[in-house]
Each structure stands twice: as structure tokens, then as C-alpha cells.
């Protein structure tokens, strides 16, 4: 069954679990570094390796980040909550249990407003946000690279114990045909929240943010929830949309055939855009959860929570709305600015005195072009204050666009502020009428034939005088003014 038909016949319900790796200096329960890109099994201690006798200790910064996430999502923050052990055997799990939160999450009962492309707002209810540790990473060697048929497997425990916060939604209903878009927009909005809070780099491609997408179908919004599938570890916004789309169509096909959707985990395949059956999930999964006896309960003081709440930065959705109104950008312009990660620096540039349109033009235009050319981060090239100064010089008529680009190049090369570069290199538009007048007089005297043509009404012949004038003033003449002066002198 095609998606378009499926969505006409069935009401989709989503449930999304997002894991975010926190950007703490050390791991969730031990002092091993939490960093990316080192050799296998270098970021480990006896705790990450689950050596006999090793004990966990809770990372306070991770708790702080989890509380910030909870507050940003409008959650209640638990006065006391415990970790639990989720027991199962797998080689990437050094202790053969994962330390997680089970029935006592640190944050619960929140919501997140998600804005779709056309500006429609959807409120996603958050059931809970809880802390847990990541597992290590298995690499299967030989065969197809999958566990079946592999000759042997290697385990890297660098990731074991990296702090995670898992955010679980309540069932997301009422999205109708926009379900795929809502799913992606929700995760994108969360990603932006993580970045605004500074709790994670939140890079999807590095697996900092991973989404498990639950989808179920029902005959109508009044019907009870259908059987859901959980598509694990979908790692890009586009993949999320495709996975939801695929699952809706697939489940509808199953239901149309009079069969039942199996409650199972599924895997998404980038190449085909399809999902495939993973493991049948049933009530027989028994993780034998019990409170982690090696850790005392986490009891964030109310003072601390209130302090964190007071210090929360403005969240991306609110900021976007505020700035859209203040700056008068189009939706498309705003989206480009946000996607390029330039919102903050443009805001700073405006705060430094630039007009919003000028700030946007410089950052998304010439500076972005140079950055791309030099493979550098845009914001490392030049400061917001300098861009504002540059825009100010243009506005004051001291620079035209072409000259301003030259000045910018000098600023990027570290030659000083825009004003300094302009003065040092003599790039200021000539304002001195005397110098311009002399150049105009010289040009008129040297080109009597051209003057005759102008007198005869061939106005475009003025261009022939502009060349010598610009040459004499090294390009700094104000062309409009020179034109006025030529006409005045010829017609006088």
C-alpha cells in the first residue's frame, strides 16, 4: 500500500525516544575522558572496564545537564531519584548490566513545542527524561561485517559509560499525513535545544543524537492504539522522515492483508529507505531491574534546580520567533541563517549596530564564501563587531560594496579593524569635491569630442569620461557625484 493511501485510511501514532550523548569532560560514572576520536580502549578506567571491585560514582555535571534538559522541556525535576541496573549479557556491556534510571527518572511530565516548515505549531508531550550510560562498541571482523558469519569481534569500551539522557515522548497523535515531518521536526527541535543549552555538540552524524521511532496505526483517532514497531537508531532527519513514511505504508499493507503487526524492533536501511525486522519484543524480555546498590540516590536541591532554571538560555524556538519579528526576515531567509548556524553571530552583529539585513548579507554572503574557500568556521574569520563596523562604513557612504569586500579581506588577514584597513590602504570613497572637480575638469579638457556628443544629447557618452576620472582618483570617486558634476560643467 502506498503511503498516500495508507494515511487516508489509517491514523498514525508516533512515540519517539531520543538519546543524547552529553558533552561532559568525563564519563557518567568514572573519571575516564569522554572524548571522540582516540584509539580503541584508550578512554577507559577500571570502572569503564567493569574490573572486579570497581565502583561507579555519579558525574555531577551530567546530572546538571540532565536537569537543564528537563527544565528546557518543561519537566518536573525529581527531588530524589535512583539509578537502577538493567541486567543482560552482551560483550559491549562490561558489567553485563547497564546502569540506567528505571522507575525514578530525574525529569518527567513536560512538553516541547515543535514548529513545522509552514509555521504550524505542534505540542509534543514528554513523558520523561532519564540518565543512563552508553555501552561500548562491537566491531565484527570477517564475513559481511555483521555478527552472523563474522570470524571474531572486537570491543571498544571508549564509549562505555558515556553519559546519555534519554527523552521519551507520550504517544504523539493527531499528526495525520504530517507524521513523518513531525517526527523529524521534533528531533530537530530537540537537537537545537541541546545545542542552545550547551549540553552536547548534538551532531547527528557522530551519533551524539540517536532516535528510536515507534509507529503504530489505528483505524480512527477514537480507536485504541494499534501494535507498534520500534525502528532503532535512526540517525538523520531525512532518515527519520523516510523511516516513518515507510513504516506507515508497511504496517498499512500488513493490516490490509488482514494480518497483525508484530511488536518488534526494526532496523532502518539508508540505501533502500526500508526497515527490516530486528528482534521480536515481547513480555519475556526480563531485565531484572533493581535499584543500583552502589549509588546513593541523586537528590538535587531545590535551590540548585531554581538556579539552573533562572540561568536557562533563551530556547531556539522562542528566539527564532522573537528575531523573525524584530528583523523582518522572510521565513526562508531565517531558515538559511539558522541552518548555517549564524543566528547568534548575526544577533551579535545587530547588537553592535548593524542593520539586520546588512548583517545577514555579510555573514551569509562574502564571509561564508571565504570560509568555504578556506575551509574555516565562519565565526573564526571575523568578529561581529568588525562586521557591524564594516556595514556602518558602507551605510555612511565611505565604502561601496566592492571596496568593502577589499576591506573585509584585509580584516580577515588580520590587518586591523575595518576603519584601520580602509585608511591604511586608502580605500575610502573620495569625498573631497576639489580632487574630484580637478579630475572632472581634466577629463573634459582632454576629451572635447566626447563633450560635444554629450552636448548633442548622447548621455551614454558620459561613460567615456568616467574611465579617466576613476583612474585619476584610483577608483575612489563617487560615480554619481562625478556624473552630476560633468553635466553641470558642460551645460553651464
Amino acid at each position, binding site marked *: 500500500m502506498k503511503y498516500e493511501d495508507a494515511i487516508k485510511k489509517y491514523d498514525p501514532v508516533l512515540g519517539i525516544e531520543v538519546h543524547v550523548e552529553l558533552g561532559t569532560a568525563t564519563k557518567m560514572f568514572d573519571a575516564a575522558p569522554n572524548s571522540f576520536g582516540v584509539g580503541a580502549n584508550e578512554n577507559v578506567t577500571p570502572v569503564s572496564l567493569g574490573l572486579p571491585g570497581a*565502583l561507579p560514582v555519579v558525574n555531577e555535571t551530567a546530572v546538571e545537564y540532565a536537569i537543564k534538559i528537563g527544565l528546557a522541556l518543561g519537566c518536573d525535576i525529581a527531588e530524589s531519584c535512583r539509578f537502577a541496573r538493567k541486567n543482560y549479557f552482551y560483550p559491549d556491556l562490561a558489567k553485563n*548490566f547497564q546502569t540506567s534510571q528505571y522507575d525514578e527518572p530525574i525529569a518527567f511530565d513536560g512538553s516541547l513545542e515543535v514548529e513545522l516548515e509552514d509555521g504550524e505549531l505542534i505540542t509534543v508531550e514528554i513523558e520523561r527524561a532519564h540518565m543512563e550510560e552508553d555501552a561500548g562498541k562491537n566491531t565484527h571482523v570477517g564475513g559481511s561485517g555483521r555478527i552472523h558469519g563474522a570470524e571474531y569481534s572486537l570491543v571498544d569500551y571508549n564509549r562505555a559509560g558515556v553519559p546519555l539522557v534519554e527523552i521519551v515522548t507520550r504517544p504523539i497523535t493527531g499528526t495525520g499525513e504530517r507524521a513523518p515531518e513531525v517526527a523529524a521536526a521534533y528531533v530537530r527541535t530537540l537537537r537545537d535545544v541541546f545545542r542552545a543549552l550547551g549540553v552536547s555538540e548534538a551532531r547527528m552524524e557522530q551519533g551524539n543524537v540517536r532516535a528510536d521511532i515507534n509507529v503504530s496505526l489505528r483505524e480512527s483517532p477514537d480507536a485504541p492504539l494499534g501494535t507498534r514497531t520500534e525502528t532503532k537508531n535512526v540517525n538523520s532527519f531525512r532518515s527519520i522522515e523516510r523511516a516513518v513514511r515507510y513504516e506507515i505504508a508497511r504496517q498499512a499493507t500488513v493490516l490490509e492483508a488482514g494480518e497483525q503487526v508484530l511488536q518488534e524492533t526494526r532496523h532502518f536501511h539508508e540505501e533502500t529507505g526500508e526497515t527490516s525486522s530486528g528482534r521480536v519484543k515481547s513480555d519475556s524480555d526480563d531485565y531484572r531491574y533493581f535499584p543500583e546498590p552502589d549509588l546513593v540516590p541523586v537528590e538535587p536541591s531545590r535551590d540548585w534546580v531554581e538556579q539552573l532554571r533562572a540561568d536557562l538560555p533563551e530556547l531556539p524556538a522562542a528566539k527564532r520567533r522573537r528575531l523573525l519579528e524584530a528583523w523582518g526576515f522572510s521565513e526562508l531567509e531565517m531558515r538559511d541563517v539558522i541552518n548555517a548556524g549564524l543566528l547568534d553571530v548575526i544577533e551579535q552583529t545587530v547588537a553592535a549596530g548593524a542593520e539586520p539585513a546588512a548583517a545577514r548579507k555579510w555573514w551569509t554572503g562574502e564571509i561564508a564564501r571565504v570560509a568555504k574557500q578556506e575551509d574555516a568556521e565562519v565565526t573564526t574569520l571575523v568578529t561581529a563587531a568588525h562586521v557591524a563596523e564594516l556595514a556602518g562604513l558602507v551605510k555612511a557612504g565611505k565604502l561601496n560594496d566592492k571596496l568593502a569586500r577589499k576591506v573585509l579581506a584585509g580584516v580577515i588577514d588580520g590587518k586591523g579593524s575595518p576603519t584601520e584597513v580602509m585608511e591604511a590602504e586608502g580605500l575610502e570613497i573620495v569625498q573631497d569635491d576639489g580632487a574630484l572637480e580637478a579630475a572632472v575638469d581634466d577629463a573634459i579638457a582632454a576629451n572635447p569630442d566626447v563633450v560635444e556628443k554629450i552636448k548633442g544629447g548622447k548621455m551614454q557618452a558620459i561613460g567615456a569620461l568616467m574611465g579617466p576620472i576613476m583612474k585619476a582618483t584610483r577608483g575612489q570617486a563617487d560615480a554619481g557625484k562625478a556624473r552630476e558634476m560633468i553635466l553641470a560643467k558642460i551645460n553651464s
Partner: protein
Amino acid sequence: MADLTRLSALDLAAGMRAGDYSSTEITQAHLDRISAVDETTGAFITVTADAALATAADVDRRRAAGETLHPLAGVPVAHKDLIVTEGVATTAASKMLEGWVPPYSGTVYRHTQEAGMPLLGKTNLDEFAMGATTENSAFGPTANPWDTTKVPGGSSGGAAAALAAYEAPLSVGTDTGGSVRQPAAFTGTVGVKPTYGSVSRYGVIAMASSLDQVGPMGRTVADAAALHEVLAGHDPHDSTSLTDQATGFLAAAEAGAASGSLAGKRLGVIRQLTGEGVEPGVQAAFDEALTIAEAAGAEIVDIDCPSFSYAVEAYYLIMPSEVSSNLARYDGMRYGLRVEPEEGPVTAETVMAATRAAGFGAEVKRRIILGTYALSAGYYDAYYGSAQKVRTLVQRDLAKAFETADVLVSPTAPTTAFDLGAAKEMDPMSLYLGDVATIPANLAGVPGMSVPAGVAEGLPVGFQLLAPAREDVRLYEIGAGIEAAVNDTRGAGVLAAAPEL
């Protein structure tokens, strides 16, 4: 020179300070004693003679150079082979960890190293501390120095036997349900289970995290107090380590040893732990010690702790539950034993299964299975949940009892040491019931101590004291008072009644 192995740890320390003998002489004397008798006692799994002598020589050199040293510097110590010791094989008395040499040290071992205490070796225990006889060791049983046909108790049986056989002046044990106190009782020595959180568990191979506590063992209360001061202290590596730590154990023991210290002290006799179920000889020795204490001015109070009747059952749900999870990491994937299946495919799962089948002994498997069952969905509330409720009741009973008594007392164990091999004939449940007196302290996190009460039919009997949490000093003061009063009456320490090996 006197036989240095017969002196108390504090006397050895004083002798070194006075220049009477060196740490090297003391350490060598103990190593010689180990060579002479350990074949009989089997107290040690590993003897670290070279490392011990190196530490001793270093301490002697530093003392000669006039450095300020820890009061126990140069006094040798034995660690139970459950304590992780960097560079020294640590087995937990299990085939699972045979040959594992740790890359790090437990906090308590680090503390004794920093104090300059030579490590004599690693003492025998029941596998992963599971047992009450030290017969569940993969490396053979330990014999009781009082009678080598008897068990030394367990699980810290090697630690206790090493003291009673004068192979070590001090031992570090661990106590999850009585594993320090019961072997102390069976060998006529002193064993303390501190308040939960007094001593760090970091680098102590876990059996049941919410119950485990490292404990000092010695031949005198004062020696145990001095060792406790070395072991204790807040440890940022252990989340359950107390931040506000009690101190002054040795001073309390010294005050308690002074005559008249028992006057007015209220000893609460726990009704549920005396009389029925206690061997007559044990009861008689306990009663006699009580009479001696009363004569010294102590007041005897009757205490009712009804919840204690359920303590063993609760313990044998909580402990195995935690065991089943704590021992999951021994799977042949990273360290220790690795066994491939004899037939069928070799996968991570089959290697884990084969390794665990081959590496764990019967008692360990029994507890893993019990705990796995108790935590299973649908059973959790009935088993683990109910057991936690009993735990709360035990804490309440104790809190109430301490309103009318300074310490609670009972025989440490209902019997004296039993015959080697006898436990195998017993059903596990009746063996578990032997822990009835010691388990409540672990469930409630309060400190407990066993001091020698006397002798019954040639074997020592232990006298247990319990104090409120963080009141370990009370144990040392009153325990030393009982010890002094009993020794006065006998004319010598109880251990002096042990026959020569």
C-alpha cells in the same frame, strides 16, 4: 628475642619505635611462621614475601632517617584475597579469576601501603566470600588452628586462621552477613564489621553491594581499632562512603580496657538470638561472659527484636539478588577464565555460558540462580520487595532497642567451629541459619564486633556486640571492657587456650 609473632600489633609498633626490633625482623618472623605452619592451616592463597620484606626495609630505612611514620608503619598485614591488589594476583578464591593480576589497587590496600604496612599475602576465603567455612575455596580449605579437623569459619576464614596461628598480627577481612565476625568467633580472635560506609568498598570484589563492608581483624580489640583507623576514611571513589567519618577507635579501645569502664554500660541481650537454637556450650560461655561483665558494673537489659526472626530469609533474598548482578561481569570476555564450549558454535554467548559453568563453584551458582529468580518480573515485589521491607523493620527494631541499651549482645554464632566436611552434609538452609546473629547488622548497616567470650569443649566462643550506625567507638570501648574483664577472670587471653599447632 621474644617470639615476635606472639606480640600484638600495637606492641610490635611500640617495639619498633623503641628500637627493640625492626620491621624486617618482624616481617621475617611472620614469613618464617607462615613457612612453618601454613601447609597445615592453609590460611594463605598467595604469600608475598619479597614485597613484604621490601616494604619492611623501606620502613626501617625511613625510620632510621628520622622520618615521621604512621603509628602502624612496619607492622605486617594480610589482606583477604577479595581485596584488589595491584601487581599481586587476586582470585576471590575462584577458578574464574585464577591468575588475574589487577592493574589497580583497592582503597583499603592503598591505605595499608601508604601506612607502610608490609603485605604478607592474600588470605583464603569462600569463593567470592560465599560461605561460612572457607571450604568453598577453589584452592582448598583452611583449617582451624585450634583443631585442624575443624573449619575456621568463613568467609574470612583464612584471615582469622592467620591471626590465630600467629602467621599475621593483623588481617583485613570483609563481612557481608557475618564473614568477619563468625570466623573471629570460631578462632578466638577479634573481628569488626564497621558501620556501612566507614570503610571504602572501592577495589573490594563485590558480593552484595548494599551489605558488604571491609572489617579489621586482630587478636585484640585495640589492634582491630588501630587497623580500623588505617582502613577507614571517606573515599570519593565509593558513592556509599560516609562523608562525615567517626574516628577515635583506638582511644576508645584504650579507655575501655581501663578497669571500671563497664560500670553503668547497658548491655541489651537480644532474646531472639539466645536460648533456643544455641548450642549449650556456646550459651554457657556467653552467659559466663555476661556474668563477668555484670560483675564489672555493666547493666543487663532484655531486648526484643521480633523482626530478627525474618532477617535470615530477607538476607537470602537481597544478597543473592545483588550477587546475581554483581557476578554477571565474569563472562570470559575481558579477563580471568575463558572456556570455549566443547561442542556447538563458539559465540560470545556460548563462551560466556561455558566459562561461567566451569569457573563458578556450586555455592556461587546456587546464589546466582536464587537471585536471578528473585529479581524476575512477577516475583520482584514478592521477594526482593518484601525483603527490603524486612530490612526496614530490622532497622526500626534496632533503633528502638538502642533507646534502652548502649550495645546489643548475643553469641556471635549459635555453634562453635564444626568439622571440616560437615557443611557438605548439611542442607544449605540450616547452614544459612548459622548467620542469624550476624545478618541483622548488615541489613541495618550498623557496626558489629565479635570478641572472645570463652571456650566450650576446646573451641572458642564469640561474644557479639552491636552498636548504632556511626557509633563504632562504642564497640571498641565496651568490647575492650569485656575483653579485659574476661581475660582478667581467665588470667590470660582466650587464644592462649589454643593448643600449639
